[in-house]
């Protein structure tokens, strides 16, 4: 339960590539990957137009609340959420039980197209996710030092020095 999610350069690039491809294939404005705790993982498209940190946290809250609703009525989960706006729409789906894939699109795309492309991309992302977890385990098992293993008290104090 207390295992950290760890992402290395290689997986980050693979995921970013997948998100970029999904953005083009689905004619979306923004494609965004968040973990269920609200941590932002990667994104593609016009992400500098939105506050991605807030987007990540609210998406995770939204999914958590919807999960709670599902359990209340005896469903395992609602794997897709869709919010329709006047101009922009948000499609949210769960990937590999741990991540949330967010696609923001407007009239240049359609719900059908987004759903179709998301399905394909999800299985690709899932594969990267399982590689990531495997790698984290191997690295953990081989006792390769985490960057924090050598933090000193002074390092920590320095953060709060001002």
């Amino acid at each position: 339960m207390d295992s950290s999610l760890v992402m290395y350069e290689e997986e980050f690039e693979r995921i970013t590539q997948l998100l970029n491809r999904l953005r083009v294939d689905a004619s979306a404005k923004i494609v965004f990957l968040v973990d269920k705790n609200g941590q932002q993982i990667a994104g593609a498209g016009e992400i500098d137009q939105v506050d991605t940190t807030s987007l990540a946290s609210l998406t995770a809250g939204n999914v958590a609340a919807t999960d709670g609703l599902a359990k209340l009525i005896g469903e395992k989960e609602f794997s897709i959420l869709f919010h329709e706006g006047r101009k922009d729409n948000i499609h949210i789906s769960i990937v590999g039980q741990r991540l949330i894939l967010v696609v923001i699109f407007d009239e240049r795309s359609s719900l059908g197209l987004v759903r179709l492309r998301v399905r394909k991309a999800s299985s690709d992302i899932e594969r990267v996710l399982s590689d990531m977890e495997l790698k984290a385990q191997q690295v953990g098992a081989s006792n390769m030092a985490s960057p924090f293993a050598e933090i000193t008290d002074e390092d920590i104090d320095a953060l709060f020095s001002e």
Partner: protein
Amino acid sequence: MSFINYAAREINVKIVYYGPGLCGKTTNLQYIYEKSNPQQKGKLISLATETDRTLFFDFLPLDLGSVRGFKTRFHLYTVPGQVFYDASRKLILKGVDGVVFVADSQEARMDANIESLRNLDENLSENGFELRVIPYVLQLNKRDLPSAVPVDELYRVLNFKGEPTFEAVATQGMGVFETLKAVAKQVLYELRRR
């Protein structure tokens, strides 16, 4: 559960402010938001009712600087304190790295403090955590009120593992940053230990 991103050289951790209704959890976040540099902080998001009671959570992202070349990003959350929002509180504790318990020092709120602490213990276990081992700080808030119970007594009733404890007046900012620092330090020590 922290998220370590080697690609972006970032570490993200989640801190949750817990405590009974109206104890000052949101006020803590508001003060931190007001006093932090614009470069350090993101937007403060409050999902609140029309009467400004927290409905789901408040959220404040805060960059504390770098440790060993890694940016440390703290995500601060509050829970809704009112008893009937328990389902929401459980959700917010998911993946938590550190907890601040904000106690209301007023005599009339002693039972509410104890009840909320018990509720925290339960909800943490349901999420697979243990209050005894998770990074944890106690804040005794509202020290300025005339009906505040003496600190010794609050300490005796609410402090259960010798956790760092701070007196606070969150509306004026007293004790707010001390509390945050103490919990952030514990979380970083915990990362080192793992």
